Each structure stands twice: as structure tokens, then as C-alpha cells.
């Protein structure tokens, strides 16, 4: 077929050449960059009269093409303005291409296509790979932290490979999910965390750790309805579009890189447990305060100094270590006039700061595009990865969790006894966290496959038909083994688990672009279908033989098998219409109909839509006077409705489940039918202004938005006479509104120097408008992998902001006697904690969040720094609460407890400790433990040096770069915890794995 086509093309060429009787001859020359004279490899040289005659420029920019002497050449290259050159009989034509001006050429990826930045009508933030910094982040979500106004990346865990909680413009839902939709190369991917036993205490959030950050070309965040509504029922929490790198035409180019790093817990306020001596003195005072003599061996509170006779040690140091990080990658890209490819292979391994915590990823990607015919292009995006994560038990666990136990274990309790066996410290429930970390296993091995193929057909130049089809697979093998060596009672246990999630997606679009006069039109219609199935099979095998710790050695009577299955599907039809007049007035509308199996039969289809417009004011004639300094002034406005379908399957179905009674299986209703169950709806308006001064050396934007969530999915109480106590219904509403502002400036731009800086800030306010009759809802900590869900002191209250701490009101210490005081119901002070009144004491939602950054480059040397801040949120740190929360002389306390009342008149202190546990000022949550969670974090400082080209060329390379990065080097905060970042609820039950700081060095070689 191809040969036949070539033959005919050649024939036509020969014939037309004959007819035109023009001389056919060869043109040669060089293509270079007009701005610096550097040669441009891979530029396409085309004969205008004959589209099938192509040539590409070589590495040194040279080209050779057969053309006609009176023909015209079209020269183009990505990043440069295309140029038409009349041959005019010349056989040597040197061509200089002008780089595309930043403003015009800035094309960003949006829903189902790309758009020039100036044409965007919605609230969209896009970042190119180079803006994402070569920071050695494990996953791409971590790279975005603090960089986009209104997008909060809330890491709850510093554990290697952990998930991230992402909130775009606040939290919009109580029971449906709040994570944005992730779309990679046009396909919504599985971004849930399917791991079972590792990643303890994180639970939920977005898992994109399986993607190699270096494969990313650009990331676009769609924030408002105009930008996101075409994703319909999945768009309510924003959409993050990821585009991976595609091949560049030209000779094969290889890039290899290696990174090494070390990390430790971020603990910039030196939060620590008490030393042995401090603790002895604290306990002795505590005993004296109880009227006991700490030196009396018959006293219940006998605390002799001899406890220290065998020395003491610091469990904080013994349970943590220096973590290591390494990453190796090689990628290759290249292509010719017909096809191009990008492929990469990478290995990443991070050994954490707690024993047994590690994450490793092996990933391979091939992105290939091929022009089958002039009108037909095909391509594939394939990513395969293997991720292994393991962890010791953390999260809500208490005794086994090193992050919690290190503040409870006594400094004089040895790690191992005289015989070298691990101790089982009674002050810590008989558990030794180090023994568990070293002997137990909690691992997940995840195999990920994402394969996408597309076929694009342009029957006429203005119309593009495209079909994209994708298969995605996540298979996780999980294993949790309790080794009897780590258990006081010598019990062993094993849980094994295999889960599979499979998602098939087809996305088919027709895109029509036209221009007549000053009118520009784009029409897109599309159809999508997706089916996702998830199943798992797992076994609980108690008492396995430690010599053969596999299910085969457990008894059949004790073995228990678990199985789960769920499936859901989505079918969609959508359309987008864009119109602009003279690149000044832009109008856009989108509509999408989604049918989902998740919802009730009578509400299965939903229609979502948006309208938006923008006005490039600076292009108006009346703005001519300001054009010398005002380079951009664009007003945007949008309104739209989209949905949140983020609920588990089958909630619309009434079901019967099995009940065993009298040795027979029967069935009982377990959930009512709910044929009306439907989407949560988000109605969002957005008004924004983009501006640029001095040829965009200073540019920025400001956005105002209002996001109303209605038909919120809540469990509503119904009369028991219906057979059920509650039903999951579309009731309730919630509002988020806010302002976002960002500013970027090129402060200095000289030939060798460039200095840029950026700043962003976002204010978001939430308000619960309707809870359908419940005055308040309690929240549970969903980050409970490995342990039961626990209720938190955070409530959702009608008429207030979404999350509120509900705590007893603490009123400080009575300076005269050192007792803790609480405010009673009637406003008087009481030392009886149980009489303290409950108040709404503040919200874990920040008043504002944002970041700022700066980069300085001089020749090959560059220095960049990124900062991130959160302001005005409250947090409740449990490390403090749990460890200092008792005076029973059992466990250790944090250094914070040293500042206790010692003599009348002491103020600004904590209550005096009294041995015997009668000291009720400590136990139970109160505002005493609530703190200002504001922080300013230096996210990343990177110093890089790229060797000058001459040097590089002399050693036969095309690039050589070294860099060194400090991640999270310092955080300014006032929280009594290792680190202030505690997730959206501002609360952790046990000790969470707090953030780490890393120092990483790397080298990148291109050839």
C-alpha cells in the first residue's frame, strides 16, 4: 500500500514537473536560530507545491532537498515561527528561524485539545516540565506543592511512596471524594491507592507515584467550571491534565541521569522525648506533688535515681535513621519525517527514615507517533511500572508505631536485653517497635500497566477525527506477616491479598477548526465510554509456621478467605464550541451528558455544561496609548455546572446480605433501594483578570470564584418504620468561595543573566449551608490503614466552615496552685476538666495558602528556590497530647512537658504533674492541645551547573549538568510536633509519619 502510494506520488511529481517544464534541481543549506546563530537540528523542510517532499535538518543544521527552481520551501520546527522561502533559482539557501514569541507560541493543554494561552477562557494553570524543577520528588503531585494558586497538596505522610491529598479550591464534599480527576495523555487514569498493607496511616488521597516525574512534559490544572465541565460528572474537584513527553524529530538523543540523596525527619523545632535525667526529675516532682516520697521504696511512686544506673538512651534516635535515595534513568528520543519516539527506563529507590519503610519503582515508557499517511497518524503511550512499597505499622497504631512509641518508651528501657533479645517494654503495651520493624513484613507489590493508542485522521485539513483507546491495569500483591519473634506472646499471623483493578476507556472526538475573516471557530464533539472492575482475593492465615511463613502452614480450620468484587461504568457524549473574533473576543461553551452505573435507575443520566468568555482588552484600539507598557489585559468570566460521582459502586441498589441463624443461611435487607441516587452538583462561577506589563516581564492573574455544592450525598436519618434507620441521599449543600492571585516577574534579563521570581496566594472560605436536618456531623479519620476508623474531634456544622474542632475549653494554669483550669458551662473557671464546656475552637482549614519562588541563572549556573506557606489553620498534635497526657508514671513525655508549674506565680506554663493519674487536666482533648498550624516551608533549593557547550562538545557529549538540591531544608512553625503538616483535618490519631528533609545530588548527561 505504502509503496503503491509512493509510486503514484512519484509519478504525479514527474508528470507535473514535465507539465510545468520547470527545472528540477537540488537545494542545500543550513537552518539556524535567528537569535543566537546556533544550528537547528530536526527542522522540517517541505516543498510547498508537493507536500510529500520532505527533508529534515541534520544535527549541524544542514539540509538537502529536491525541489523545483521556482518553488517555495516551508521551513518549520517546534518552538520556531514557520517560514516560507521562495527558491528563486538559488541552490544554496541558508535559513534563519525566529523563536516563537513566548506569548503567542505558548500553547497549553486543555480538555480534549490544546489552546493558545491567550485564548483560554477558563481558570487554567499550566506548567511545563522545566517549571516543575528537577527536584527529586518521588511523584508528580509532590512537585506541584505551593506552585499553583488554589491547589493545596496536603501531604499527611512523609513516607516513601505515600499518597497526597489534593484540594483544588477547597473541599467540596463530605461523603463523595474530594480528589481531582487525573487525566494522563487524554485518558482518566486510576489514581486511587490500591495498596493494602504499606503506606500505613495515609489512606485515600491520590496515588500517582507509579508515574516517573521525568516523563512529564506538562501539567495543566483546570480549576473552574469553564475549564473542567467537559469532564462532567467527574469534574467537581478540578481536573489535572498530564501530558507525557513525545519524541522530537532528529537524530536519536540520549539523556542519562543519576541522583543520590540522604534524608532525615524534618524536625526544625527540635521536638523530642525527655532524656533519662529529665524524666526522672519530672516523675519525682510528680510524686512529690501527689504527696509521696520518691525515695521511699514502699511508695507507689518510688522513683529512685538508680533507674538510670544502666544508662539511658534516646528512642527517637534509635527508632529513626538516615534514609537514602537513589534514582537512575536513561531516555532516548528521536524521529524522522514520518515518526518519532520517546522512551525511558528508570529506577528509583527510597529507603525511609524509619526502619522497614521503603519504596522502589521500576518504570519504562514508550511514546511513539507515526504518520501512516499524509492524513492518518497513529501513536501509542505505554507505561509499565513495578512498585514495591513496604512499611512498619504506623498511622493510627499506637504501640507498634515508632513515630508514636518513641515518645512513650522510657529512656532507661533497653532495646535488647543482656542476651541480645528484643525487650517487650511494659510502658509501651509490651511492644517493641524496632522488633516489629525488623521482623514483621508489610509489603505491597504493585504492577501497573497503562497503554493508550490513538488514531488520528484528517480527511480535510479543518477536520480531525481521533480515537483514543486505553487499557489500564493495577495488580497488587500484598503481604502482612507478624513474626512471633516480635510478639511477646509468640503468636504469628499472616494476611495475603491480591487485588486487581482494570479500566478500559475509549474516547472518540471530532474536531473542526475554521477561520473566515476575523471569525475563528472550533467545534468538538465526542463520545467516551469507560468500564472499571476491581476484585480482590485474600486470605487470613493465623498461626503459620515461622519457618515457612506462608498460608500452607496454617490450619485449614483457621484459614479464612476474603473476596471482593465491584464494577462500574460510564458512558458520555460531549461537545465544545469555541468562537473568537479577531483574537479579541472569545466565547466558549461546553456540554456533557454522562450516564453512570453508580447512580439510581431513574437518575442515571446527568447533563453538565459551562459557558465562558474572555476579552483581550489590550488589543482594543483605545488601548493603543498604553501598549508601550501594558502588554496584556484580559478579562475572563465563566459559569458552569459539573458533578461529583466519587462514591463506591452499588449504593443505588437495595441489597440483601446473608445472615446465619440456627445453622442455616438466611437473608436480610442490608440497604434500601435508592433509585433516585444521583450526582453531587457543583455550580461554579469564576471571574478573572490576566495582566502583563513591559512585554510580559511582569505578568499575573487574579481570580474570584464561588463554588456551590448542592445535592450533597449524605446519610439521612429516616424513620425505622421504613425498615431502615438511614438512607444515602442527595441532600445538603456547601459553599466554597475565594480569591486567587499570582504574579510572575523577570526582574533581570541580560545576555548572561536572568533573574525571575513568582508569587501566589489563595484564600478559600467554606460554609456548610444545609445538612438536611442534622445540626452537625462527626468526622472519622479515614487515614486508618491497618486499624479501625476512629472518630475525630473535628465536626461538620451547619452554618459554619466545613471543619471545626469541637473541644473542651482550656483556660491555662492557675498561677497560685498549678492546677489546670477549664471554662465551665456558666463561664466560670473550674479545675475539673469534666465540667469544662465544649466550644467550637477553630478550623483546620487555612485562611490562605500559597508559595513563592525565585531563580537566578548566570551562564550555565542556576540557583532556584521554592517556598510554600499555609496560614491561619488550627492543628491538634497528638504526639503531644498522648505523650504528655498522663502522669501515671508509665511512659515518657515530650520535652514540652518540662515547662510545668513549679511555684506560685508561674505563668505561661503547663499544669503541674501529679502522680497517680488523678490529674485530669491532661486527659481528653481540649483547646490546650490546639495550636496555630501556620507554617512557611522552604520546599526546595537547587543549585545546578550546566557545562559550557564547547567543553561538552570537546568530550563528545551534547550536554552535561550537575546539580544539588535541598528538599524541605527548613520549616518555620510553632507546632508542638515534629512537623506541622497534618492533612485536611489538621489532626492525627497516632503518630503520623511526618515530613522528611533531603539532600540530593545528581548528574545529567545528554549525547
Amino acid at each position, binding site marked *: 500500500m505504502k509503496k503503491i502510494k509512493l509510486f503514484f506520488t512519484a509519478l504525479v511529481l514527474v508528470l507535473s514537473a514535465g507539465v510545468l517544464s520547470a527545472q528540477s534541481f537540488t537545494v542545500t543549506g543550513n537552518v539556524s536560530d535567528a537569535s543566537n546563530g546556533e544550528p537547528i537540528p530536526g527542522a522540517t523542510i517541505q516543498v510547498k507545491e508537493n507536500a510529500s517532499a520532505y527533508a529534515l535538518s541534520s544535527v549541524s543544521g544542514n539540509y538537502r532537498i529536491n525541489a523545483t527552481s521556482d518553488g517555495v520551501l516551508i521551513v518549520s520546527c517546534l518552538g520556531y515561527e514557520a517560514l516560507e522561502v521562495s527558491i528563486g533559482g538559488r541552490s544554496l539557501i541558508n535559513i534563519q528561524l525566529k523563536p516563537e514569541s513566548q506569548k503567542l507560541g505558548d500553547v497549553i493543554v486543555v480538555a480534549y485539545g490544546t489552546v493558545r494561552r491567550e485564548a483560554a477562557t477558563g481558570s487554567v494553570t499550566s506548567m511545563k516540565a522545566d517549571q516543575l524543577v528537577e527536584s527529586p520528588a518521588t511523584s508528580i503531585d509532590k512537585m506541584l506543592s505551593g506552585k499553583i494558586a488554589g491547589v493545596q497538596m496536603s501531604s499527611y505522610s512523609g513516607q516513601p511512596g505515600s499518597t497526597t491529598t489534593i484540594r483544588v479550591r477547597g473541599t467540596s464534599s463530605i461523603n463523595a471524594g474530594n480528589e481531582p480527576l487525573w487525566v494522563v495523555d487524554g485518558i482518566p487514569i486510576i489514581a486511587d491507592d490500591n495498596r493494602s498493607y504499606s503506606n500505613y496511616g495515609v489512606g485515600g488521597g491520590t496515588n500517582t507515584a507509579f508515574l516517573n516525574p521525568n516523563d512529564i512534559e506538562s501539567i495543566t490544572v483546570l480549576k473552574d467550571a469553564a475549564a473542567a465541565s467537559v469532564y462532567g460528572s467527574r469534574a467537581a474537584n478540578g481536573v489535572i491534565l498530564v501530558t507525557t513527553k513525545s519524541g522530537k524529530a532528529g537524530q536519536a538523543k540520549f539523556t542519562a541521569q543519576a541522583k543520590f540523596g540522604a534524608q532525615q525527619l524534618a524536625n526544625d523545632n527540635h521536638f523530642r522525648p525527655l532524656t533519662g535525667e529529665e524524666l526522672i526529675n519530672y516523675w519525682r516532682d510528680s510524686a512529690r506533688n501527689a504527696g509521696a516520697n520518691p525515695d521511699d521504696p514502699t511508695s507507689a511512686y518510688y522513683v529512685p535515681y538508680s533507674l538510670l544506673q544502666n544508662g539511658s538512651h534516646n528512642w527517637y534516635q534509635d527508632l529513626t535513621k538516615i534514609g537514602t535515595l537513589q534514582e537512575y534513568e536513561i531516555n532516548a528520543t528521536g524521529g524522522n519525517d514520518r515518526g518519532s519516539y520517546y522512551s525511558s527506563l528508570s529506577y528509583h529507590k527510597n529507603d525511609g527514615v524509619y526502619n522497614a519503610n521503603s519504596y522502589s519503582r521500576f518504570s519504562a515508557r514508550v511514546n511513539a507517533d507515526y504518520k501512516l499517511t499524509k492524513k492518518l497518524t497513529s501513536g501509542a503511550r505505554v507505561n509499565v511500572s513495578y512498585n514495591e512499597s513496604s512499611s512498619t505499622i504506623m498511622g493510627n497504631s499506637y504501640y507498634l508505631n515508632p513515630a508514636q512509641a518513641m515518645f512513650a518508651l522510657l529512656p532507661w528501657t533497653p532495646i535488647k536485653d543482656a542476651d541480645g533479645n528484643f525487650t517487650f517494654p511494659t510502658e509501651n503495651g509490651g511492644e517493641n517497635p524496632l522488633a516489629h520493624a525488623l521482623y514483621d513484613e508489610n509489603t505491597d507489590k504493585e504492577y501497573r500497566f497503562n497503554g493508550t493508542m490513538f488514531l488520528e485522521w484528517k480527511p480535510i485539513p479543518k477536520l480531525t477525527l481521533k480515537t483514543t483507546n486505553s487499557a489500564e491495569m493495577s495488580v497488587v500483591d500484598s503481604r502482612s506477616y507478624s513474626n512471633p519473634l516480635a510478639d511477646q506472646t509468640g503468636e504469628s499471623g499472616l494476611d495475603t491479598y491480591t487485588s486487581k483493578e482494570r479500566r478500559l476507556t475509549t474516547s472518540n472526538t471530532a474536531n473542526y477548526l475554521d477561520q473566515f475573516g476575523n471569525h475563528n471557530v472550533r467545534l468538538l464533539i465526542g463520545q467516551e465510554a469507560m468500564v472499571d472492575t476491581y476484585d480482590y482475593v485474600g486470605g487470613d492465615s493465623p498461626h503459620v509456621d515461622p519457618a515457612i511463613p506462608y498460608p500452607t502452614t496454617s490450619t485449614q480450620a483457621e484459614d479464612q478467605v476474603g*473476596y471482593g468484587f465491584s*464494577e462500574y461504568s460510564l*458512558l458520555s457524549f460531549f461537545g465544545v464550541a469555541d468562537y473568537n473574533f479577531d483574537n479579541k473576543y472569545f466565547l466558549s461553551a461546553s456540554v456533557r451528558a454522562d450516564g453512570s*452505573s453508580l447512580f439510581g435507575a431513574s437518575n442515571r443520566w446527568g447533563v453538565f455544561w459551562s459557558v465562558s468568555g474572555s476579552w483581550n482588552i489590550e488589543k482594543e484600539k483605545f488601548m493603543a496609548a498604553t501598549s508601550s507598557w501594558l502588554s496584556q489585559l484580559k478579562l475572563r468570566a465563566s459559569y458552569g455546572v459539573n458533578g461529583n460521582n466519587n462514591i463506591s*459502586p452499588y449504593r443505588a*441498589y437495595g441489597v440483601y446480605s446473608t445472615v446465619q441463624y*440456627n445453622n442455616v443461611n438466611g437473608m436480610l*435487607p442490608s440497604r434500601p433501594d435508592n433509585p433516585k441516587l444521583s450526582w453531587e452538583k457543583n455550580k461554579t462561577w469564576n471571574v478573572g483578570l490576566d495582566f502583563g506589563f513591559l512585554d510580559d516581564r511582569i505578568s499575573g492573574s487574579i481570580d474570584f470564584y464561588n463554588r456551590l455544592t448542592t445535592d450533597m450525598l449524605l446519610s439521612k436519618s429516616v424513620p425505622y*418504620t*421504613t425498615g431502615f434507620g438511614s438512607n444515602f441521599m442527595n441532600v445538603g449543600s456547601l459553599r466554597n468561595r475565594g480569591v486567587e492571585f499570582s504574579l510572575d516577574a523577570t526582574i533581570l534579563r541580560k545576555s548572561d543573566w536572568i533573574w525571575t521570581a513568582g508569587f501566589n496566594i489563595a484564600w478559600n472560605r467554606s460554609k456548610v449551608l444545609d445538612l438536611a436536618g442534622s445540626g452537625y456531623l462527626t468526622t472519622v479519620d479515614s487515614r486508618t490503614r491497618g486499624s479501625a476508623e476512629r472518630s475525630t474531634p473535628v465536626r461538620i456544622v451547619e452554618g459554619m466552615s466545613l471543619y471545626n474542632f469541637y473541644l473542651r475549653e482550656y483556660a491555662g494554669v492557675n498561677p497560685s496552685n498549678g492546677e489546670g483550669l477549664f471554662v465551665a458551662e456558666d463561664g466560670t473557671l473550674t479545675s475539673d476538666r469534666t465540667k469544662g464546656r465544649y466550644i467550637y475552637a477553630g478550623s483546620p482549614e487555612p485562611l490562605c495558602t500559597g508559595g513563592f519562588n525565585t531563580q537566578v541563572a548566570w551562564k550555565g549556573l542556576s540557583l532556584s528556590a521554592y517556598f510554600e506557606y499555609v496560614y491561619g489553620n488550627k492543628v491538634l498534635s497528638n504526639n503531644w497530647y498522648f505523650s504528655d497526657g498522663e502522669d501515671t508514671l508509665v511512659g515518657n513525655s515530650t520535652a514540652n512537658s518540662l515547662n510545668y508549674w513549679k511555684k506560685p506565680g508561674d505563668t505561661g506554663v503547663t499544669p503541674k504533674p501529679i502522680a497517680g493519674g488523678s490529674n485530669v487536666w491532661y486527659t481528653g482533648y481540649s483547646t490546650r492541645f490546639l495550636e496555630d498550624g501556620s507554617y512557611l516551608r522552604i520546599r526546595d533549593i537547587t543549585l545546578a551547573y550546566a557545562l559550557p557547550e564547547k567543553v561538552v562538545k570537546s568530550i563528545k557529549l551534547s550536554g552535561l549538568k550537575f546539580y544539588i538540591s535541598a528538599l524541605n531544608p527548613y520549616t518555620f512553625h510553632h507546632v508542638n510536633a515534629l512537623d506541622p503538616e497534618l492533612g485536611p483535618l489538621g489532626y492525627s490519631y497516632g503518630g503520623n509519619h511526618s515530613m522528611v528533609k533531603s539532600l540530593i545530588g545528581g548528574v545529567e548527561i545528554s549525547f
Partner: protein
Amino acid sequence: MKRVITYIFIGLAALSLSGCKDFLEKGPKLSQSSELTLSTYSGLDKVTQGVYAYFGSLGWYGGERVLESEMRSGNGMKNADHTSNRYNTEMNWNYLPESTSSMWALGYEAIAACNNVIDNLEGKDVGDVTVQDLNNLKAECLFIRAFCHFDMVTLFALPYTYVKANEKTLNEKQKLGIPYVIHTDPAGTPARDPVLEVYPKVVEDLLAAEEAIDPSYARSGVADKKAVVTLEAIQALLSRVYLYMGEWQKAADYATKVIDSGKFELYTVENYEKVWNQNTGGSEVIFENYIDLGNYSNENPMYMCYPDGAYGDCICSAELYNSYADGDIRKKLYCQDKNETDGLWWTLKYKGKGLGNPDANNTVILRLSEMYLNRAEAIVNGASIPGTTAVKDLNEVITNRGLAGLNSVGMDAIKSERRKELAWEGHYFFDKARWGESVVRDLCYGMDPRYQNINFPDYRWALPIPKRELEVNANLKQNDGYKE
């Protein structure tokens, strides 16, 4: 080429448009949808089997139905070794709308499950399934529906006999019963039916069940054949309901039907001590629940009423223990704590089946002695049954307990024997309620002196309706005396 591609695109579009509907139908596979469950006989049969499980619930005969009665009536008490607060609310009668009996929730859940079966039986007599098979399911569900309503109306409303006798003087709220739900409406907010209408509806359901059931039918495959609905179980419950209504002749008639069925035998002095803790019910048992380690709860009567290795919070009051004469075999059904010398006594009716630790015990719900006692009481109140008398019936019971027969019988003797025989089986509170007798007790640990004695009448003889129900059903009214 172009044509092929065009066809491919058109084909794709057509494919996606067709099969649209099926593509979006993704029903649950691991649990059965309501629609599917109720569409076949086997589904309906399984639901009927499932509803029995409610008899094992802690909120009903798995515990509270029995202990609410014993702790409120003066049969039970607490002491300082058992400071858990468990069953203190019951003992002190201080139920609140926020914390009242959980029977309301589980009762209506069970009723809804029964209604789903009864409403879907039509036309399921296909294949091997006969109309009688369907009628048997119907009878079982009618029995359970009636039983739930009956046990709720005796709990949440004032006694029928009292309301009937004082119909003119009581206010409307005092005469309210409970909603009698015979069709479950997912959007329904039913109001409370009057007490005087609820009892006849219970009778109506039971009579329909009696008519529907095959006299020889008993659910097959179960471990305990005494824990399923039979003709005699329906008749025994009818005898009790009529007794509670003061319909003496009918109470006596239905007791007679059960007694004359010949399927049950009174316990004797020889076996009385051994029959209570068997895996399946003894010769007297007409209907019971079946508790094993699968549905055991650690607040069940076994755990609450037995001191060794269990909580043992609910102790026999001295008044009850001392009411047993020395030769009375029933006195031997009490034990003391092996490790204590506090002189306290616990019932042995829930000693456990010997399944291990924890242990479990069935609760007897209907048995033959009750039938004799029902009939004796009915006859004393004017019923007549040829061939028997109140004296004869009462003596039938007490001579099998090691006591000498009486020569004459009045209400006092009936009341005393009924208390002693049916103690710890959930009767005494409800008997006192229908007799209109005040509760007069000895003060014990954990008992609020203000609530030591409870007069009859008093608003507390009806429990408060749960607050959450009032909040979601505007048609419900709270009982007189409680906060709205």
C-alpha cells in the same frame, strides 16, 4: 482507504450508541439485589429464614426483652461488685427519649423484612412450589410481624387492660400504641395507632397465620426445631395476647389447643435442673431463640446473669429468691459466685451450653407451663374449659416442681406461681403492668432511692418513643410524661 476509515468511525459511533442501557447496568454480584431476592420462592424463603435472626438480637430475646423485664420488676438487682452501670437504666426506670429501648429499631426492621415477603408471595407457586409452601412462609412472617408489634406495644404503650378500663379518663396520648405497619413504604411516616387497635391487629395477624400454616409444618434444615414457627407456637402466642387483653375465654381456649396437642410435656422435679442449658429446647418449649457463638452478644442473659467467668451484673433479688420454698426444685436453679461469699444468688437458666468461653444460651420464649398458668388465670377470671379447673392447672405445674398441690386457687396464688415459674424469662414486668400492680422493691447498689418503688399507674410504664424517630417522622407523638 478513506472509506474503510470512515466505516470504522461510523461503526465505533454506532457501537457506542447501541447497548447503551446494558452497559450502564452494573448490579452488585456479591450481595443480592432486593428485586432479585424477592422475585423467587427460594429468595423469599431465605428472607423468612433471615428474619428469625432478630429473635437472637440483643435488643430483643438475645437479652434486653428478658432483662428489661427482670430488672424493672424487682426480680433483678445489682451489687457493689458489679459497678459497670449495665442495666442500671432499666433498674431505675430512667429511660429518656435519647436513650430508650432499641426494640423500636430492630422491631420495624424485622417487620419490614416480613412485609417484603408477605407482599411478594403472589404467583410464586411455580415448579415444585405449592400454594401451601407459600402459605407456610406467610404464616411465619405473619407470626413474626405480630410478635414484633406485640412486644413493642407492651413496651412503648400503657397496658391494654388499663387503657380499656380507663378509656374515658385517659388523654389521647396516653392511649397511643405504635404504628401497626402491614405494608412498608420507603417514604412512609405512619402515625401511632391507638393501643386498643394495635392488640386486635396482632390477633388478626396471628389468626391469619394459624389459618395459613400447615399443622405439621416446621422449617427444615435448622439445628433447633423449637426455634421455628409451628401451629402451636402461633396458638401459644394467641393465648398470651388474649390474656394480656383480658379476653379470658379465648386465652383459655388457645392454651387448651396447645396443651391438648400432646406435643409438649411438663418438666418434672427429676429433669427441671438439666433442661435449661441444652443446645435445643426441652420438652416444654413451644418456641425459643437459638443462640450460639455466631450470634452471641456479651450483654446477653448468659453473660449478664451468670457470675463465673461472665459479667454477672444481674443478680436475683432476695425477695424473689426467698419466695421459693425449701422443697421447691426451682430454688435449685440459683447459684452463688464460686469465688465470693457475698450471699448473692444468680439464676442458672442462662448458665451456658458449654460451647466454650464465651458461652451462649438459648432464651425460652413460649413454653407449656405458661399455657397452664395462662389457663388457670383465665379460669379464675371467668373462663371455662370442660375437664379442667384453675386448681387442677396450677397444681399440674407446682406438683412437678416438688410442691404439694393446693386446694383452692385465687389470683394471689396465680401471681406468685407465675412469678416463680417464669422468672428470668421476661414476663414479670409485663404481668405486673397488665395486673396494674406497683413495683415495690428493696433498695440495692446502683438503685436511685427516688425510683425504688414505682406506682401504677405512672407514665413510666410506657417507655419513651426514640427521639430520633420523632425528629424524622412528624406524625409521631411522644408518650405522655416525657420531653417532646
